[in-house]
């Protein structure tokens, strides 16, 4: 007979949509990443504090000119098919990634189109791989660790003889067992896993699989998810919206765990727009918002307002980055007058697929209407919103940027060339500052440049950052050892399930 609760051998995790494919970094969505961190291991990975640690490698030697990276593979690194991983496997995995036909999503990191180009990947001996770049890169290791596009160490059996993807044969603590499309992905403990050394932190460090099975269940409906959680049909709901977590905080069968997040929720202003090209109008929009209250309301008190593109939890987020526009309706009105604003309709685009993005628009519209700014909300489905974003086809857009793990990467989501990415802030001064910051290794100098960018942002108001999405993972009280982290992916190693 059916038992309402899953047994202690299996942890069930809710994901809101299917994983598209089992090919990490290629045909993926964030849920693919959630599954893949358990199955495959890249050479390096982020720690809890977002610094980079070795993972499949046990040693990394970087040349002084930041162009030569030598990785020594972990002792006992073994594929799920039982074979030991070698440097040749790493080279083969790289060949796949660098082949444009593969469609690796973050290929621009490595093909020279943004920054350095990977010149060669060479197996120096069975356990040593040397990667050479055509120019120095201070961010190469961070890019390698990027969880959305892991350069995973994969066995050749992951592909068939024609080079077509089958399923990941990786080196992680769990192996890929079954994928029932639209329903679930089932992982099984890899019993021959030899963990890395060092304390578990982020996606790095020593991992032990305590349960036999890990099941990722596709449950799109949030109401269905919470019902399944409180009735014990699932154990983990990662990244629940604050409002849905609210009611669960009183439930004795589950615990809600909060963590500062990295996603940036923001109001993008199109500086190319006839009306919004006027800086006074943009500033009026900024000053008309009570941003502290805005963040408080939108995050249900979990996240403070963050005007910066850099997440609050980042070490680069200093006091200077916290400076924001004052809430000053009178000033806003004066600025409106200065801009010659006469009640013209402004349109904010948003989507209902994510309540938070919708709330951004709703709250902003309500606050703006108080100072007499006439804003109409246009609700799109997520696909349309994305297209409008990519085309820069909006006046105001309520938007969320997925987690970028470094300050520079985050700045790149803010600043860009309007011809290539019309939604971005295209200001020569900002470009210059960001370029200099990426080339600077010295932390203090880098910090100063980033602070200057923020200063410029406040003066220009090309976008109004509101807050960073809080991370709320709600888990069953039967789980022991579960921890949320900034990277937001649910980590089910080192987690036990009690009876």
């Amino acid at each position, binding site marked *: *007979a059916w038992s309402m609760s899953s047994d202690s051998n299996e942890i069930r995790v809710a994901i809101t949509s299917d994983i598209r494919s089992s090919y990490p970094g290629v045909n993926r969505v964030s849920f693919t990443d959630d599954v893949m961190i358990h199955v495959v291991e890249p050479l390096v990975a982020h720690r809890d504090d977002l610094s980079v640690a070795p993972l499949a490698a046990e040693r990394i030697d970087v040349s002084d000119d930041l162009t030569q990276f030598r990785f020594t593979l972990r002792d006992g690194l073994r594929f799920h098919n039982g074979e030991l991983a070698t440097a040749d496997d790493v080279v083969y995995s790289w060949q796949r990634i660098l082949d*444009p036909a593969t*469609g690796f*999503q*973050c290929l621009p990191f490595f093909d020279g189109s943004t920054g350095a180009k990977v010149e060669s990947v060479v197996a120096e001996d069975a356990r040593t791989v040397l990667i050479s770049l055509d120019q120095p890169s201070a961010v190469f290791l961070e890019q390698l660790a990027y969880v959305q596009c892991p350069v995973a160490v994969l066995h050749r059996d992951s592909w068939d003889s024609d080079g077509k993807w089958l399923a990941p044969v990786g080196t992680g603590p769990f192996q890929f067992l079954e994928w029932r499309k*639209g329903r679930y992905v089932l992982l099984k403990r890899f019993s021959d896993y030899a963990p890395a050394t060092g304390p578990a932190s982020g996606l790095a460090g020593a991992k032990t699989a305590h349960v036999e099975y890990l099941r990722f269940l596709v449950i799109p409906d949030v109401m*269905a998810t919470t019902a399944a959680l409180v009735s014990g049909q*699932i154990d983990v709901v990662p990244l629940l919206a604050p409002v849905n977590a609210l009611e669960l905080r009183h439930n004795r069968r589950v615990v809600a765990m909060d963590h500062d997040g990295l996603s940036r929720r923001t109001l993008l202003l199109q500086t190319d727009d006839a009306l919004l090209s006027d800086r006074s109008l943009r500033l009026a929009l900024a000053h008309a918002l009570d941003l502290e209250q805005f963040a408080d309301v939108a995050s249900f008190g979990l996240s403070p307002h963050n005007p910066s593109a850099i997440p609050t939890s980042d070490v680069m987020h200093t006091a200077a980055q916290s400076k924001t526009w004052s809430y000053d309706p009178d000033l806003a009105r004066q600025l409106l007058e200065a801009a010659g604003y006469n009640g013209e309709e402004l349109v904010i685009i948003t989507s209902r697929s994510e309540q938070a993005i919708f709330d951004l628009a709703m709250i902003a519209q309500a606050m703006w209407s108080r100072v007499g700014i006439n804003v109409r909300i246009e609700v799109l489905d997520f696909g349309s919103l*994305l297209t409008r974003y990519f085309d820069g086809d909006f006046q105001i857009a309520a938007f969320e940027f997925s987690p970028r793990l470094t300050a520079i990467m985050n700045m790149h989501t803010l600043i860009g060339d309007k011809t*290539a990415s019309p939604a971005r802030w295209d200001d020569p001064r900002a470009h210059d500052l960001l370029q200099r910051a990426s080339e600077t290794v010295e932390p203090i100098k880098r910090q100063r440049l980033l602070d200057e960018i923020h200063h410029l942002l406040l003066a220009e108001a090309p976008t109004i950052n509101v807050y960073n999405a809080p991370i709320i993972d709600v888990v069953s009280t039967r789980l022991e050892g579960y921890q949320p982290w900034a990277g937001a992916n649910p980590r089910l190693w080192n987690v036990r399930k009690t009876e």
Partner: protein
Amino acid sequence: MSSYFLKRLLMLVPTLLLVTIAVFIIMRLVPGDPVSMMLGDIENPELVRQMRAELRLDDPVIIQYLDWLADVVTLNFGVSFVTGEPVIGTMLSRLAVTAQIVTISVLLASCLALVFGTLAAWRANRRADLVISVLAIGSMSVPAFWVGIALIIVFGIKLQWLPTVGYVSPLDNFSESLQFLVLPIMALVVAETGGLLRMVRATTLDVLSKDYITAARARGLSERSVLFRHALPNTLIPTATLVGFTLGSLLGGAAVIESVFTLPGMGRLLVESVYARDYVMVQGVMIFVAIIYVLVNLLVDMLYPVLDPRVRLRA
């Protein structure tokens, strides 16, 4: 009869052409394309260009349509943009799920509707009729997701009697699969019974005023025989028509119920494919759904001569 069948099948062709053309136009009117849906906020223009070319999204729509049509004629429905799986296989497995809950619940709803609709007509404008009618209209007036949520709260959370997420195929484990089907079927039955019942009631009212009913009573038959052996068979044709329409449109997806109960059915497949801009999948599903709709209604039409000996099918 067979020429009638053939003719109706032939009529399917223009319907399908119209449906597929509309799908093509609609999907391309809606902004957003499958590639950007996959990449999200990651910027990789080269990959976008490459994938668009691969998916032939930059060809003129008419060429895309004709190419696709040529494939479909050879029964090749293509592969999903999103998962790379063959469309036909995905559809069949999803249809199996939807077909189970939909056919069972429509059958149950029809039985309930027939029994209570007949009773309501029999007691027309008395208290029993009033109660049944109000309940029936109530069932029509409540959004389906409300019913689903209420069932989840009661049976899933409060009583914890039944599972509320997921699905087990009856081929894998029959008794377990039943437990997963109970709540969605209940929700659909609640949602669908009202309309059917009102239809049955109206038809039965009409039938009960017929002379043959008076004649049956005059022969001294019991009211039960009069209602269920004489009135009921005469209400079956209009009821079957409505059941056909209901079945046909629900088989195309009971999207709301499927998503409330996390069932991997056709409706959710369609909704998710639309949201993911999985054009090939949407087109495949649409042609499939249209065929099912037409076939189900055709089958119901073929039933007419069985239900009513007077009917002879004419093309």
